[in-house]
């Protein structure tokens, strides 16, 4: 489904990824592990099309990423993102944040998803009016609203307590069981309990 061929990346003169080649199949739950600074987030950003690699090639369903004509549409409909710091837009309400990501009018789906995630009561609240755990669930709802084929999560539980951490991983696992590919970059070893495969990065190398 996703294939990385010889990916390297530089920030200025500093090389952070070295010749990475890997393959991720449909329905996999991938745990991308490694210590802080190992290049996990950079690799995740490249795999999720948010960052162009300095060298190498990324293929999605055997199509090179650079050949996809409407990458915005692809990102909106095929990929979901969960970030460590939520990255919700502060001047939009919880509902509007989720609706912003929706590919078209999905009012009922949004309410169903919010109900499923236990945030239905927060519809009209703003991100700075809710807790960190609630924000992360809103972020999850935003990632799931278009039923993406792949979900990328970068340290999705970095700012959560153990109870909320468990809830997030169980939810991602549930989504994965329905056929969605999940890639989680984290230094939290408990992801291993939910993952089907683990990819370990050290100093930018596999």
């Amino acid at each position, binding site marked *: 489904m996703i294939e990385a061929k010889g990916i390297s990346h530089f920030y200025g003169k500093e090389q952070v990824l070295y010749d990475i080649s890997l393959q991720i199949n449909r329905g996999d739950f991938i745990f991308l592990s490694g210590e802080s600074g190992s290049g996990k987030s950079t690799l995740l*950003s490249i795999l999720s099309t*948010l*960052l*162009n690699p300095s060298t190498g090639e990324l293929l999605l369903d055997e199509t090179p990423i650079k050949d996809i004509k409407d990458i*915005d*549409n*692809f*990102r*909106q*409909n095929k*990929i979901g*993102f969960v*970030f460590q*710091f939520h*990255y919700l*837009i502060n001047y939009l309400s919880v509902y509007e944040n989720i609706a*912003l*990501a929706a*590919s078209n009018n999905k009012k009922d789906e949004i309410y169903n998803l919010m109900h499923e995630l236990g945030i239905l009561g927060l519809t009209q609240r703003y991100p700075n009016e809710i807790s960190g755990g609630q924000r992360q669930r809103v972020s999850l709802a*935003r990632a799931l609203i278009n039923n993406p084929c792949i979900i990328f999560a970068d340290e999705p539980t970095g700012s959560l307590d153990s109870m909320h951490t468990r809830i997030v991983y169980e939810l991602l696992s549930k989504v994965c069981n329905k056929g969605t590919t999940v890639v989680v970059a984290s230094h939290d070893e408990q992801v291993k309990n939910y993952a089907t495969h683990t990819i370990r990065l050290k100093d930018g190398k596999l």
Partner: protein
Amino acid sequence: MYSKMIKTDGDIIIIQKGIADTFFSNVDVSLMNKINTLAHVKSSYAMIVGASPVGHIPIAGIYGVSENHLSHYKLQEGKYPKQSEVLLGKTLAKQIRSRSVKIGNKRFKISGSYTSKIGFEDGGVVMNISDASDLFSRSASFILVSAKSPNYTQQIKDKIADMDTEIEVKTTQSFVQEYNQFKIIENSSFIISALAFAMGLMGIASVMSMIVNSRKEEFGIMRALGKSRFFIIKNLFFETLIISFSAYLFALLLSLLILQALPHIQMLQGYVNGSLSFTSAIYVLISTLAMSLIGTLIPAWIASKTDPIILINQGCS
């Protein structure tokens, strides 16, 4: 103000030859008698323009006018001045409450007060030209002539020019355009306002650019969620239009209020005045919108071409 006075009161102006400023011009007032005999002349009047301390007021404009022109000043109270009498502009009248006032070395009886359509005249003093002649030691600063029809202006002008070699005869229109002080004031005002406006425009562009740069994280999130460059730029375009148009309307209303209030500020005695033409207002609107859009769309376009994750990280840093 002064140019407005000259333009509205006559078609032809006669001043002393080779004198750059009407304040120093001296024209023989008896020339009016000859001018009035010319064909197609509707009327003429002479005027002395000067400035002098008036009572406790350090400086005020003095207008010595021939008798046939006194009615130009609309009486607010009292009557038109006779010899050794003066009529005070309404602004000045509010500050001088006595029955007489000392102008130069002479005391004049106050015969009443007047209002004028030309704001700065309201801060001055009107007296008979003979009194002004004694005060400023000259016959007349200039003579203004009105033709029965604009078609005769050139013909009358040529005939007057032949009457005396010491005078310069011009249409009031060309006089105002050529008069050095008007030119200096007009050019200086234009340069100062153009510079202020240019700086304002650069300020607008800079502020809009800073706003866009401070929203990089938001654009990065939107791009990560699959929103297109066009979506982001279109939203910014309309946001900018609304913000800059609202700011323009506010500034326009404020300017109009200030312009309206200026002639009524007693301290300024009507000397400070201004106007805003429709064309200028439109130019300002177009320039404001253009600079706002340039300031917004260029950084937005650059941002939209950047990888989403870099935008998010730049926004966080």
